[in-house]
C-alpha cells in the first residue's frame, strides 16, 4: 500500500503539473486504446515509465544487496562496494560505445554484456577475498575496491576513446532515469522479476548460509550450486539495473539493513520487504533528484550516495562497537 502511494505521489510531482487522476486516466485510456489528453500523454509516455524504472531499479539493487549480504554472511556486502556495479558499468559502456548507432541492440545487449562482466567481477572478488568458512569484511571490501577501480579505469578509457559519444554515455553511467521508456522498463522487468522469484524460492537456503558453508552442507544443502545460483541472480539484477540506469550506489547496502532491523534476518520476510522498500526509496530519491534544483536534474546516484555514505559510516561504527554481535568479522 505504501509503495502504491509513493508511486502515485512520484508520478504526479514534476515539471509538468500532473495530478493522480491524469495517471489513472492515462492508465485506463491506454488499456482501452482511447485518445489521451496532453497531460495524460506526459503521464503515460514520460512519467509512468520513469517511476516504474526507478522502482524496478531500487527493488533489484536492494534484492542484490540482501542476497550478497546473505551469501557472504557479511552485512557490508553491496553490489557497489564489492565492485559488481563497476564491472557491470564497464560491460554496459562497452556495448554503448560499440553499438552507439544501434540503440535497439544496446537496449538488449547492454544488460547481457554487463552481466558477463559483473559475474566476472564477483568471481574474481570472491576468489581474492575468500577465507576458510566465510568472506571477511576487510578482504571483501579491499578486493572489491581494487577490482572495481580497475574496471572504473577501463570504463574511463572507453569513454575517452568514444570521443563525441562520451558525454551521452557518461550521463547514462552516472545514474538516472531520464532515459526511461517503456522499452527500458520491459527489459529491466524481464531481468528483475524472474530474479525476485528465484531469490524468494531460495530464501530458506540463504538462512542456512548463516550457519557457515560447512554448517549448511551438514544439513544437506548443496552449498556450491546454490551459492553460484544466488550470486548469479544478484549479479544479473545488478547488471540489468546498471545498464538501464547507470551506477547507483548504497541502495543495496542501506535498504536491506533497514529491512533487517524491521523484520529480523529470516530471508523469507526480509527479501520481500527489502524489494518493496528499495522500490519506494528509489522512486523518492528520483523524485528528489528531478525536483530539488529543477529544471536541472541531479543524477540520482548523487542523492543515494549523499544519504548512503553517512549511513555506511554509522553502520561501520555500530558494527565495530557491537563486535561479533552484528556479524562483522574484520
Amino acid at each position: 500500500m505504501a509503495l502504491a502511494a509513493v508511486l502515485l505521489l512520484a508520478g504526479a510531482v514534476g515539471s509538468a503539473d500532473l495530478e493522480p487522476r491524469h495517471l489513472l486516466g492515462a492508465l485506463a485510456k491506454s488499456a482501452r486504446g482511447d485518445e489521451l489528453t496532453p497531460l495524460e500523454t506526459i503521464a503515460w509516455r514520460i512519467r509512468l515509465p520513469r517511476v516504474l524504472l526507478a522502482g524496478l531499479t531500487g527493488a533489484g539493487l536492494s534484492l542484490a544487496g540482501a542476497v550478497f549480504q546473505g551469501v557472504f554472511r557479511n552485512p557490508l556486502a553491496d553490489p557497489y562496494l564489492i565492485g559488481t556495479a563497476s564491472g557491470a558499468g564497464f560491460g554496459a559502456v562497452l556495448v554503448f560505445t560499440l553499438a552507439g548507432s544501434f540503440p535497439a541492440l544496446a537496449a538488449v545487449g547492454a544488460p547481457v554484456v554487463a552481466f558477463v562482466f559483473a559475474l566476472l567481477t564477483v568471481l574474481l572478488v570472491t576468489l581474492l577475498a575468500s577465507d576458510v568458512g566465510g568472506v571477511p569484511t576487510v578482504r571483501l571490501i579491499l578486493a572489491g575496491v581494487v577490482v572495481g577501480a580497475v574496471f572504473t579505469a577501463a570504463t574511463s578509457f572507453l569513454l575517452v576513446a568514444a570521443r563525441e559519444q562520451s558525454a551521452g554515455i557518461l550521463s547514462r553511467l552516472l545514474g538516472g532515469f531520464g532515459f526511461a521508456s517503456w522499452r527500458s522498463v520491459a527489459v529491466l522487468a524481464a531481468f528483475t522479476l524472474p530474479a525476485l522469484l528465484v531469490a524468494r524460492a531460495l530464501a530458506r537456503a540463504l538462512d542456512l548460509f548463516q550457519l557457515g558453508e560447512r554448517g549448511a552442507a551438514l544439513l544437506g544443502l548443496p552449498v556450491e550450486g546454490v551459492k553460484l545460483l544466488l550470486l548469479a541472480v544478484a549479479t544479473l539484477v545488478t547488471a540489468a539495473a546498471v545498464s538501464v540506469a547507470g551506477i547507483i550506489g548504497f541502495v543495496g547496502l542501506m535498504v536491506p539493513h533497514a529491512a533487517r532491523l524491521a523484520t529480523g534476518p529470516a530471508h523469507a520476510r526480509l527479501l520481500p520487504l527489502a524489494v518493496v522498500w528499495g522500490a519506494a526509496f528509489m522512486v523518492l530519491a528520483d523524485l528528489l533528484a528531478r525536483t530539488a534544483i529543477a529544471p536541472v536534474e541531479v543524477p540520482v546516484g548523487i542523492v543515494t550516495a549523499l544519504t548512503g555514505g553517512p549511513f555506511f559510516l554509522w553502520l561501520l561504527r555500530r558494527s565495530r562497537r557491537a563486535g561479533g554481535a552484528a556479524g562483522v568479522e574484520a
Partner: protein
Amino acid sequence: MSGAAPRGRVAPGALRPAGDAAGGSRPRPGALEAVDVVAAYPAAPGEARRPALDGVSFRLGPGEVVGLVGPNGSGKTTLLRLLSRQLRPLAGRVLLGGRPLASFGRFELARHVAVVAQEPEVPVGFTVREAVAMGRAPHVGLLGSPGPEDERAVEAALAATGTLPFAERRVETLSGGERQRAVFARAVAQQPDFLVLDEPTNHLDLRYQVELLALAREQAAAGVGVLAVLHDLNLAARACDRLVLLSRGKVAAEGSPSEVLRPDLLSATYGAAVTVLRSEDGPVIVPRF
C-alpha cells in the same frame, strides 16, 4: 553409565515423544560403520603423505553412546568426518544400514546423521527457535516450506534440550553453555538416527559438560546412536557405554570404559604417566607428575 549422573535442568519426561513426531514409522537403519578405512590429507610439499587413519573399523549401533578418545592427531576428527561424509576414504567402506554412505542423497544423509561441529557457527540475529528450526532443512528440502510436523519436531527438540525458556532470544546473546545446547537442539530437531558430536564439551564448565552429555544419553535412550569425540577421559568414562581409543591412526583399544582406560595402555598411547583409580562409578584417571 551410572544412574547417579545429574540431569541438570532437563526433565526426564522431556524426551522426544515415543515414535517421534515425524519419523515414527521409519525403520531405524542397523548401524553406522566404517570398515577398514584409510584416510589421508594432502601432504605439504616435500613431505611424505602419512595416513590419518590406517585400516580402522568402527561400528555405531542404535541406542548406544560411544566415546572416541585418543591423543591429538590420532585420527578422531578424521574418523568423525568419514562417518558424516565430510571426507571420503581412500580405501575401505563407510556404510549406513549396510548401504554405502556415498549412495545417499545430501538431504537424505542429513535426515539420518546429524553433526554437532567443534566450534559451530551460530546464525547471528536469528532467535533460538529459528536456529533450531534450521535443523528441519533436510526434511523440508531446498524449495519446500515447513509444515506442522516440522513445527512439532522443533517444539519437541526445544523441550527435550531445556532450551524452551530462551527460545525467543537471539542466539548471539546466549552464554557459551546455552549456545551449545541450542546447537544440540538443532541436531535433535533433525531427528537423526545417529548423532555425531565433535568435542561437544569444549569450553564448557563442569555443569554444562554434564548437562550436555546427559542430553546425549537421553537421545540414546530414545534409540539414537551417539558418537562423541571427547578429550576428558573421566567425562568419557561416565558418559559412554563404550570407548574407542585411537592411536596414530589405528584402534589401540575398544570396549567398556574399564577395559579401555588401563594405566599401561593410556601411558603408552598418550606418552604420559597416569594412575587409574577404581571407583564404583567406573575408572578415574589421575595424571602423575
